[in-house]
């Protein structure tokens, strides 16, 4: 498996005009700030260009482009560099904001865009699965979150109550 091949390919997709801006989220995005953890796939968030008058998002140009380059489809993913890659539209205002605010990172001279630590943490809080809660604890323990920025994201997206509950459950000695 070669995650750098994934980055190289999505960068090329951007250059070729197949996608207009992307950001890596999920577990792979979190690795830019945290210790490496196993994950089954790579989440790439992109803005889909919607045809005028259409409400349907069409990922076909992406699949056609990648198929032409020998990539295989597997369920909802495309195999790139041995990794199942999911191209995801931002499904809500928080992920839309995360995509807009993504930061550029350097991987051995190769640029890539990744969600900020604060957005990854807020998305983990919102998604709320067990593995997301673990990731959120890791973000807190690693001390990589800018508290002001994180709190403002929570406020904008109505996540303060969820955060207070999370704090009580996981960050307090007395639940």
């Amino acid at each position, binding site marked *: 498996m070669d995650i750098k091949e994934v980055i190289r390919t999505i960068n090329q997709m951007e250059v070729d005009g197949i996608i207009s801006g992307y950001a890596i989220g999920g577990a792979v995005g979190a*690795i830019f700030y945290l210790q490496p953890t196993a994950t089954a796939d790579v989440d790439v968030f992109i803005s889909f260009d919607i045809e005028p008058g259409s409400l349907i998002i069409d990922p076909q140009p992406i699949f056609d482009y990648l198929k032409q380059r020998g990539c295989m489809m597997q369920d909802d993913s495309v195999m790139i560099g041995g990794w199942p890659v999911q191209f995801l539209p931002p499904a*809500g205002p928080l992920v839309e904001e995360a995509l807009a605010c993504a930061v550029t990172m350097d991987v051995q001279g190769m640029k890539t865009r990744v969600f900020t630590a604060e957005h990854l943490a807020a998305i983990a809080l919102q*998604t709320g699965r067990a593995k997301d809660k673990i990731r959120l604890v890791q973000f807190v323990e690693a001390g990589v979150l800018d508290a002001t920025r994180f709190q403002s994201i929570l406020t904008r997206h109505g996540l303060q109550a969820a955060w207070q509950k999370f704090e009580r459950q996981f960050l307090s000695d007395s639940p």
Partner: protein
Amino acid sequence: MTFDLERILKSKEALRNKLTNLPIEEKLRMLDALGERTLILQQAKVQIPAGATGVREDSVPYSEDSQPK
């Protein structure tokens, strides 16, 4: 080796910090290796018979609907 829990926890924390602070190139190499292991484990997964009871958490999409209540 020690059975001193405090020392064990400190040692674990130090390891986590060391892994967190590795250069991104190295972390991505580790991710590739972990991904290969995950793939092997997925392929070797035991099929759970239909009707079997067990605790399982389904994936949810990244959406507003997934917000905790």
